[in-house]
């Protein structure tokens, strides 16, 4: 069971950088990337129609709307790139990356958070501006929301680590980069305090 190998952050019952916690997020991100790529292919006329079981021509209305094409690349293409960034930053680093590579954890958290926020804005805009819903867009929004919780626990562990290093008199910047003393020697306090907190 995770939590007794010295990899979990001090005061935590589990290790948020464990593969069992990260791989499901990566899988979600890859599914999201596949959906967004498909939608982008429709937007760039690489496929003629788009799968839409519930809302008639809703998907086509939404995907061809002005809001979807307000940026130099379509929102589908942007979504696909964001999901790929989530997947890549989700797999980089080992099982203690909350202290050995806090920077990648923070990039990961920053990539996951705004993607969810933008998804919700698009879900709100669809019916209000265009009187249309898009099944796969809703599915994509749900996927991006589902990644937020599991990503935020790792983000918190990395932020707590940087805070702890700074309070110990080390450079927060070095801690961010994973170069501070605690990055490799965090196992001892982890054992001592997790017992006490429990």
């Amino acid at each position, binding site marked *: 069971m995770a939590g007794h190998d010295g990899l979990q952050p001090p005061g935590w019952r589990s290790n948020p950088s464990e593969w069992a916690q990260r791989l499901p997020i990566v899988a979600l991100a890859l599914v999201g990337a596949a959906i967004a790529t498909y939608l982008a292919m429709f937007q760039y006329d690489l496929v003629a129609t788009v799968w839409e079981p519930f809302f008639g021509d809703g998907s086509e209305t939404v995907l061809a709307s002005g809001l979807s094409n307000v940026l130099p690349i379509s929102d589908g293409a942007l979504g696909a790139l964001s999901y790929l960034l989530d997947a890549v930053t989700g797999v980089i680093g080992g099982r203690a990356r909350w202290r050995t590579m806090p920077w990648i954890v923070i990039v990961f958290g920053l990539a996951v958070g705004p993607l*969810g926020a933008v998804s*919700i804005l698009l879900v*709100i805009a669809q019916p209000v501006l265009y009187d249309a819903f898009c099944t796969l867009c809703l599915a994509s929004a749900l996927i991006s929301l589902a990644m937020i919780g*599991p990503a935020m626990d790792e983000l918190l562990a990395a932020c707590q680590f940087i805070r*702890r290093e700074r309070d110990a008199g080390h450079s927060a910047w070095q801690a961010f980069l994973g170069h501070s003393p605690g990055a490799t020697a965090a196992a001892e306090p982890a054992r001592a*305090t997790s017992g006490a907190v429990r």
Partner: protein
Amino acid sequence: MRRALPSLLVFVLGLWLMVAPSLLGYVGTAGETSDRLVGPLVAAVGFVAASAITRSVRWLNLAAAAWLVIGPWLVGVPTAAAVNSLVVGVLVGVLTPLGKPDPDRFGGGWRTLWKPERLAGRPE
């Protein structure tokens, strides 16, 4: 998991708001616009709050609940929309404070970032 239940119910209520204008027949009214705006927000906040680590975002839904209760009286909507909004708003308002997370699972939780004295494993 039991602590996530109130947030998941709020998520379902948000989904209900998204479909209610069509099912209750007030499409094209101010009631529809209100529900189409607030529904996805309520659903998203409830869904994210179902994770213990981000449970705190649930408080955003108190603002949504307040709007659902008073909004219909301010903008004027069909009766069905007003009643639905009132009922959903009260339910969201009651469910939102429930399901307090256990911060000990996360080394003291988010507050440790601005209250470092609560941080586990902190050197003296």
